[in-house]
């Protein structure tokens, strides 16, 4: 019980929220890192996935990438990149590691979404005289959108988690509150940091849940 009280008092102390090491600053770093990497990985993965899905090629690659990636520890990649010459360029090793791990879920889900589009609809669209590009933009992408969104959701929640690990290699973000707590041997600070990280991750998941529930039918994939 005393730990809970100590955690509560850490969280309600104004001094812990302001300044360079304060919660607000760390939260801002975490949000910026997460979204920058999400945009970057989507810009890389989605065009590739939509093209491969439209052409029906490279399915084995798109599906197996996620499974191969699972065996590689995120922490190891973060440290390996830090020790390469890239390590001298501030945040870049962290950003590269985060983007690398966010690509597989985006790629796999978008690819599967494109491949699962009803082939009768595709044939009908072709019969109406649609060109390849029209087919992608007006038929395949709208129908694949629910799974594309699922990929973005998985990548976003995973990025929140990976961005926390960035603190272990000297990056910013909420994870720093936890690592600083370990260095100070302050259990209340460690737990308070963990609570903040967990709440942030769950809020991210909840936000996507809300979007997927409240959005129009074609976003939710109700039509199928």
């Amino acid at each position, binding site marked *: 019980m005393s*730990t809970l009280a100590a955690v509560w008092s850490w969280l309600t102390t104004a001094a812990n929220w302001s300044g360079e090491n304060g919660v607000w600053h760390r939260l801002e770093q975490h949000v910026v890192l997460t979204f920058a990497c999400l945009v970057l990985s989507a810009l890389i993965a989605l065009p590739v996935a939509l093209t491969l899905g439209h052409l029906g090629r490279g399915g084995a690659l798109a599906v197996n990438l*996620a*499974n191969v*990636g*699972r*065996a*590689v*520890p*995120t*922490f*190891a*990649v973060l*440290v*390996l990149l*830090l*020790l390469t010459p890239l390590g001298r360029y501030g945040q870049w090793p962290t950003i590269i590691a985060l983007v690398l*791990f966010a690509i*597989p*879920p985006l790629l*796999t889900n978008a690819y599967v979404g494109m491949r699962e589009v009803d082939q009768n609809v595709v044939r009908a669209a072709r019969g109406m005289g649609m060109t390849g590009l029209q087919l992608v933009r007006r038929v395949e992408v709208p129908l694949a959108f629910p799974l594309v969104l*699922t990929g973005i959701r*998985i*990548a976003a*929640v*995973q990025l*929140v*988690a*990976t961005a*926390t*690990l960035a*603190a*272990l*290699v000297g990056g910013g973000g909420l*994870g720093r509150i*936890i*690592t600083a*707590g*370990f260095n100070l041997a302050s*259990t209340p600070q*460690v*737990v308070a*940091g*963990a*609570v903040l*990280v*967990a709440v942030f*991750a*769950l809020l991210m*998941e909840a936000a996507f849940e809300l979007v997927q529930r409240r959005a129009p039918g074609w976003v939710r994939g109700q039509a199928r």
Partner: protein
Amino acid sequence: MTAPPPDDCLARNDWICGDYLRTRQQILLDAVAQHLQLTLSSVALGLVIAVPLALLARRRRWTAGPVLGITTVIYTIPSLAMFSLLLPVYGLSATLVVVGLALYSLTLLVRNILAGLDGVPAEATEAARGMGYGPMRQLLTVELPLAVPAAMAGLRIATVSAVALTTVGAIVGYGGLGNLIYAGMNSFFKAQVLTASVLCVLIAVVLDLLLLGAERLLTPWRRTHRRTRVRGVRRRATAATEEPAAAVGRRA
């Protein structure tokens, strides 16, 4: 004949260094042993909790929603936060890492065992009942064996993920090879970081293959059917049962 001491690969801090493997053999073996111990105990603990949960979710349908919901929420919590949240309970101990990793494996295991049990053909259970099998005998000799392929798919993903996540345990001093990566980072020791990372991936691949072998041994009926004409149908059915695990992202 011996090269001057400063000019070996350790002094040059090369990524790949035979001298490192030779001189730190014992440290590496100890780290691998700890890594295996942490990973295997966590997956075993996860399995011990997941099987009853899956059976409960199937027997009392209303519990399925809450069980899957809670395990999914647990899976959403980042690993560093998970270990930190367990700190007041277990302190800086190996138990903390094992319990944290076991909690992660729950969502994959429960989903896949449940999917496997749901995928048991009605004809099989009806035939068993017709032959006079009681509920327990039916579960142990018909339903659970038929659920093995889907459950093993979940177990393999859970094990591979656990091997990778164990490294984060370095934050409390029990990370197996993660400890070497952590120490190597602080001293910029390239050979140590690369060697430990490669060993991590190797452990994951070897355990995955061992589980694949175990699955083959546990499901002899699938081996004999593999070469027959039903191959296409069978493989599609397997893909469908493995889907729940694929829909879950990796954890970091």
